[in-house]
């Protein structure tokens, strides 16, 4: 069995979890085994049909009201108990904020290795091989885990969601939350204003660099992002370090490494640490007034020109497309 940890937000399954389940199903088919999903918290049974349609043969519900809010320690404990009971070949997480927080805690609890933030999974001679970017994508590492079960996290926005019908049998588990002296508890979730989509989850990233000239001009990028589906605003390190936009928008080696369908780079020269963070985007478009900017070496389509003239014209063209 491959057990997949499913994340929800406001009782909806996150897209990264469906990607995870789809890839787990493909891997499980190769291993001639089943895929199961696990959800923590109460009132989750309604999500089982959707998980079944992405290949979950079983849907385990860890039902306990104290799991309604995320806690690393409690989640690690109840998932570890389920792993010990089911003895799966592998446990898959998404390399999201929650997955990156939880998977290592579980791996340490089980005393096994962890393959984090993988972008390629392969089966060779019945064994799983993992490939993950290191140095923010400047290099790729391929390896096996020599411990069992295999604990794995997969990078969001890489693996396709593939519908496959499976039974989706709902199995309720009484989850025992242990008492711990030294604890960490989430007491509140503070939403960012506007409920903007995160650059790591966006299909399209509209990004700006030093060429944006100041914080006020990032409004132009927000306007373009507003015209496109599932789009977010990104930024280069120099824009962030100049205080023009928050660091959570930063793309690159000390920011986020992302793989959107489309990366639009405005006024970004393309420093090596920035290219590392976005070069696995499916399509890259760059607008820069310097014809020698390194960004053009990785762009599928480049425009040498003044972004302050191109952006308004681009908005009009995108609007025409919608009409």
């Amino acid at each position, binding site marked *: 069995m491959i057990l997949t940890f499913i994340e929800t937000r406001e009782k909806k399954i996150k897209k990264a979890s469906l990607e995870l389940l789809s890839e787990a199903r493909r891997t499980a088919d190769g291993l001639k085994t089943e895929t199961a999903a696990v959800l923590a918290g109460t009132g989750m049974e309604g999500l089982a049909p959707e998980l079944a349609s992405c290949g979950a043969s079983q849907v385990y519900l860890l039902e306990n009201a104290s799991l309604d809010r995320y806690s690393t*320690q409690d989640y690690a404990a109840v998932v570890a108990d389920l792993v010990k009971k089911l003895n799966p070949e592998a446990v898959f997480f998404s390399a999201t904020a929650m997955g990156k927080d939880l998977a290592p805690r579980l791996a340490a609890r089980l005393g096994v290795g962890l393959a984090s933030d993988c972008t390629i999974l392969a089966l060779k001679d019945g064994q799983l091989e993992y490939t993950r970017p290191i140095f923010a994508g400047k290099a790729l590492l391929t390896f096996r885990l020599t411990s069992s079960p295999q604990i794995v996290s997969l990078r969001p926005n890489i693996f396709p969601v593939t519908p496959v019908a499976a039974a989706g049998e709902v199995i309720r588990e009484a989850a025992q939350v242990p008492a711990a002296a030294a604890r960490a508890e989430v007491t509140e979730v503070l939403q960012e204003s506007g409920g903007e*989509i995160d650059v790591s989850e966006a299909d399209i990233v509209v990004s700006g660099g030093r060429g944006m000239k100041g914080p006020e001009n990032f409004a132009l990028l927000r306007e373009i992002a507003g015209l496109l589906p599932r789009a977010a605003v990104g930024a280069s390190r120099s824009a962030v370090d100049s205080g023009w936009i928050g660091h959570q928008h930063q793309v690159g080696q000390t920011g986020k490494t992302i793989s959107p369908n489309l990366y639009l780079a405005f006024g970004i020269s393309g420093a090596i640490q920035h290219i590392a963070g976005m*070069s696995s985007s499916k399509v890259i478009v760059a607008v820069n007034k310097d014809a020698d900017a390194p960004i053009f070496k990785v762009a599928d389509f480049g425009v040498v020109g003044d972004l302050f*003239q191109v952006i308004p014209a681009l908005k009009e063209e995108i609007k025409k*497309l919608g009409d």
Partner: protein
Amino acid sequence: MDILVFVKRVPDTESKIRIDPATNSVVEEGLNFILSPYDEYALEEALRIKAAKGGKVVAVTAGREESLVILRKCLAMGADEAVLIKDPLPETYDGLRTARTIARFVQSKFPGAKLLLFGKQSVGADNSQVPSMVAELVGIGQANVVVKIEVEEDMATAYREIEGAQEKVSLTLPAVVSAQKGLNEPRYETLKGIMMAKKKEIPVVSIEELGLKPEEVAPRLAILKMDLPPVRKAGRVVTGEAAETARQIVEYLHAEAKVI
């Protein structure tokens, strides 16, 4: 309040990475090494907490002798002490191995430490494994990817970054906290600090001394290959009137690349 800050020596983010295919490792020759940027935020925060609450700040790394340079930097920034846990193996990319070493170090050398601070990941291995693993092995709470922290005597409140939001986490101390960019603006070393750091003795602890058995620190990862990513080909580059180039971009994205 005793604070431990765990740091790592990594190649500068401006570096171009080369790979030795014979050993499946990064060619170190010609690389400039630095204190991992996220670790700098962790150290800065430790120094600020110490300034407010008293106690001492100890910078710790696990690695080879080359790592002494970054420990000197930590001392020059203001850490009171530094310790090198000597690890003969080059980078294993195995977080559990490092976490077991650190957890044992904490339990045997600094059992009273109130805060264990880390960078949210090392720039390089990019694993984001060690802080959570250490928290589990030591049996304490954690808050990762933290952009703000308020410390009381036996409690702390950390704000951790998640997708499009922040989680406010209430921690009982001791606890593990890993730092994200935005937590603070790290200070520069002073000349006086650099001079003092040169004179300080840095104790070296071996893995054997910590009582770790070979099987406990055997890597759980078997490296098969290290590659450079596929090279992206430069595409078309156009120039001209803004209205025309904008039309060409949208035509390319819609009709050819089919992404909008």
